[in-house]
């Protein structure tokens, strides 16, 4: 019994430590996205990242394809990098047609609340339309805007704001 208790404590401690690592990542200011998916590197060069991720799984999509694209301030134009990510997404989504898709649009905090709701919706729509052009059926995709309500990076400068201006392709329902 005693050893089980202490094992439980160790697990909690590890979980806390992992949480701290994640929190540390969230506030880093190197201008890079705060998760592997945002980097989209694994999928881009086909090297690394795959590890023991099951091909065709949601994890595969997030880690190896890249589930999000980023926007310039007040813009809904899909950047060259964003286009590459969406091309990988479209290919993967066509091959794995069992997933319903929700595209979440987000804005950074440097705008007013109501405008940002509309701006997030515009970004989600632009992303959906681009994926539809690449052959992902429009009726598989729904969009939702969170405006500035769900930032992923929470510092008070541009390194965070640029990560929050995003559209995230979520397999299944909305993530939050």
């Amino acid at each position, binding site marked *: 019994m005693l050893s089980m208790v202490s094992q439980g404590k160790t697990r909690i401690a590890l979980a806390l430590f992992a949480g701290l690592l994640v929190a540390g990542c969230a506030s880093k200011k190197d201008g890079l996205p705060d998760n592997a998916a945002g980097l989209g590197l694994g999928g881009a060069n086909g090297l690394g990242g795959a590890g023991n991720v099951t091909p065709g799984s949601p994890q595969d999509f997030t880690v190896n394809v890249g589930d999000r694209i980023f926007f310039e301030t007040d813009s809904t134009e899909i950047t060259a990098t964003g286009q590459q990510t969406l091309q990988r997404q479209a290919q993967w989504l066509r091959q794995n047609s069992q997933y319903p898709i929700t595209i979440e649009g987000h804005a950074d905090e440097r705008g007013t*609340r109501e405008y940002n709701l509309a701006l997030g919706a515009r970004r989600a729509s632009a992303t959906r339309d681009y994926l539809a052009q690449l052959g992902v059926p429009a009726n598989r995709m729904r969009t939702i805007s*969170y405006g500035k*309500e769900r930032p992923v990076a929470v510092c008070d400068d541009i390194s965070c704001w640029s990560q929050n201006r995003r559209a995230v392709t979520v397999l299944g329902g909305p993530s939050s």
Partner: protein
Amino acid sequence: MHEIFKGLCVAILIIVAGFAATTPARAVVELDITQGNVQPLPIAISDFQSQDGLGKKISDVVSADLKRSGLFAPIDPSAFIQKGLGPDVSPNFQDWTVINAQALVVGRVSPEADGRLRVEFRLWDVFAGQQLDGQQFYTNPDNWRRVGHIIADAIYERVTGEKGYFDSRVVFVSESGDKANRVKRLAIMDQDGANVRYLTDGRDLVLTPRFSPNRQEVTYMSFGNGEPRVYLLQLETGQREIVGNFPGMTFAPRFSPDGQKVIMSLQQNGNANIYAMDLRSRATTRLTSTSAIDTSPSYSPDGTRIVFESDRGGRQQLYTMGADGSNQQRISFGDGSYSTPVWSPRGDLIAFTKQSGGQFQIGIMRPDGSGERILTSGFHNEGPTWAPNGRVLMFFRDQKGGGGPQLYSIDLTGYNEQKVPTSGYASDPAWSPLLD
């Protein structure tokens, strides 16, 4: 649910009568608040008499309201010479002029046989040696703070010539938790931050609550399950419903001044347009038709016009139109972008958020766009709402590195900025009309 809302029912307060001498022909005490920076009026507020401590608590509410308005300077009671003065005797005015009081407030709280309280007060003009006002109220003891606010409003109106705003409430979004995953709850409080009640439990993300003119309903936006929508919440029953059957996200709701309509934005693909819905017939009317983002609509107090923001010209700017959508014209032309316009209850001004030079500002302009003035500027100020008398604005502010938003108020002169006390982070304030 009923418990939460019971206290919100309009209190039963009966103004029995002005008693004794009322308005004198000439009062010495008056404050011209049409000028920019007003010298606050020194006023002595004697602790109201009572058998328990309730009299003092009520006069403390009166004193705090008047002080926060920036127009009155309550004198420290330790300086009073004539102590314990009640409403039945004429003051020794010499004792009050010597401490530089220009006005004097005295009062008394006494229990009635039926369990109610009787609250009386008198307002004296110290230099003229005349009574300016005298009233008494009967009320449920639970409403003691409201009696204080009503007395403060009476004093404010008698001295400034303008209606007060203290007997009013604010609906807002109470925020807690991580910035990346904030829990947001609708909450309602008195304008001074007292008597906070929560209207939602925090499970659903809620934004932009707005009062109906009868103060019995709130319209707001909630994410709930599925599509984010505009909702209507009945404060007394807690009943809520989705407003309209729209084919997309609805947001940025506000009531019409008669309370019969809700005006809001509907998002369809990349565009947001403005719609009005009649709450009785449920008929909807489309008011704008652009491929832009048209949002944050707000009616003029006579209900004939609407101000809103649109990025149809590139950046967010303010536009006005008729209540039927006619004659849309841009009114903001300054350097920057303008959003969240809200029409003053007096009709003479429009308050807004302006982004310029990396700063977020709160400003005002006339409905034709002239006379723009910035009242406050900083890292992030957003979402002004007018006090019912159109003299004070409340808004929310995020300070750089400050963790979360807080509520502030400021006079339309740009003076007297005050933090509004809330227990945690708070945003999206909306001021109620005066209660009655």
